[in-house]
């Protein structure tokens, strides 16, 4: 590890000040992405501001007919929360399948969405469910928050505080797992909301996206078996050593059909 400074603010106000004062400062939450990144020197902030114990970022609370999850909530705590399991079981299932048990004990929802890895699990759930994200400055809709691979609408020094999600018992996340990295090679979050079907796909390579054509097809009474991969824009997929763009697109369409079948 290269030389850096670590600070642990006692409040959100302190944390914001520490991030604002120093151009080289970066937020640290569970560290389950950031530590490997720093060890590999893919990023080299000079100061880490630890958000993990801030009470402003903690807790899972009912919000309207849905739920609000503090940014510093670990994947383990989301997966085992009785509140999440009762109003949004698909999200508990998603959280329980991230990485491995040790990663889930420290990694957080806020860190995952701020990072927006193109193969991360949570962004697909937030996009499909039309979640809203409250930061230290404002509230953003998921579709405005995720802006491409490893990119979000967050300004420098802006901190994710909480994520608000609607209740939904007709939702399913299916992850086609890369067995080596434990990330999604392709992951699909499908939901049936009062306004219609929602399908979000992660792992394509260019960042999480919705498959609106398939949503409309289902909303107008189309059959699951007619959801054809040729109608999925190949531009959403890239190839690498784990699979070609065509392979990913094929797996995505198969997984969408499985996820939709599971909720209809």
């Amino acid at each position: 590890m290269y030389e850096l400074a670590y600070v642990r603010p006692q409040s959100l106000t302190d944390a914001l000040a520490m991030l604002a004062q120093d151009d080289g400062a970066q937020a640290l939450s569970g560290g389950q992405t950031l530590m490997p990144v720093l060890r590999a020197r893919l990023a080299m902030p000079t100061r880490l501001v630890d958000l993990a114990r801030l009470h402003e970022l903690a807790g899972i609370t009912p919000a309207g007919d849905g739920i609000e999850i503090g940014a510093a909530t670990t994947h383990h705590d989301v997966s085992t929360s009785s509140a999440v399991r009762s109003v949004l079981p698909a999200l508990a299932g998603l959280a329980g399948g991230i990485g491995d048990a040790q990663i889930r004990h420290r990694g957080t929802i806020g860190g995952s969405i701020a990072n927006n890895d193109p193969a991360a699990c949570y962004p697909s759930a937030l996009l499909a469910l039309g979640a809203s994200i409250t930061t230290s400055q404002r509230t953003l809709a998921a579709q405005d928050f995720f802006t491409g691979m490893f990119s979000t609408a967050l300004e420098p020094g802006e901190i994710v505080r909480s994520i608000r999600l609607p209740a939904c018992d007709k939702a399913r996340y299916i992850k086609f797992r890369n067995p080596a990295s434990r990330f999604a090679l392709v992951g699909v979050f499908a939901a049936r909301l009062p306004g219609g079907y929602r399908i979000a796909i992660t792992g394509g390579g260019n960042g999480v996206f919705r498959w609106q054509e398939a949503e409309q097809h289902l909303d107008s009474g189309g059959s699951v078996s007619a959801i054809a991969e040729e109608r999925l824009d190949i531009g959403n997929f890239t190839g690498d050593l784990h699979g070609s763009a065509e392979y990913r697109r094929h797996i995505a369409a198969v997984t969408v059909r499985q996820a939709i079948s599971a909720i209809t």
Partner: protein
Amino acid sequence: MTAITLNVNGASHAIDVEDRTLLVHALRDTLRLTGAHIGCDTSQCGACTVHIDGRAVKSCTVLAAQAVDSEIRTIEGLAKGADLHPMQAAFREHHGLQCGFCTPGMIMMAVDIARRHPRPDDATVRAELEGNLCRCTGYHNIVKAVIAGAAAMEGLA
């Protein structure tokens, strides 16, 4: 250097570390607790697994400073004197190791599995061990050992 206090295996240790020091390095190099091993640089192998506040974590993916004000438990803190912890005894009994490199991480993970799943079945143990790699055993005897060790921890064996 920053002066910090780490609570490890029930004792508090005042040590000087750099802010960048990973917990696994503080344990191994400063406290000379060399049970936690370093098997990768990608947070994937689990050889470095220890408990922070009762939960299994990868000590190569946590700064020592992040663990201040927490309870840390390492493989060295399991046995009571000459008496092995039931999970350690189960690994010996069921031959759950060959070279032993992955073993401290496996056993710390196994104790965590037993805490959350008092009578785990084969599939549960295999899924829970996803974050612990072993290059020698093929896992069969590790899985047997975890199931037996969990039962022993419940006082049922």
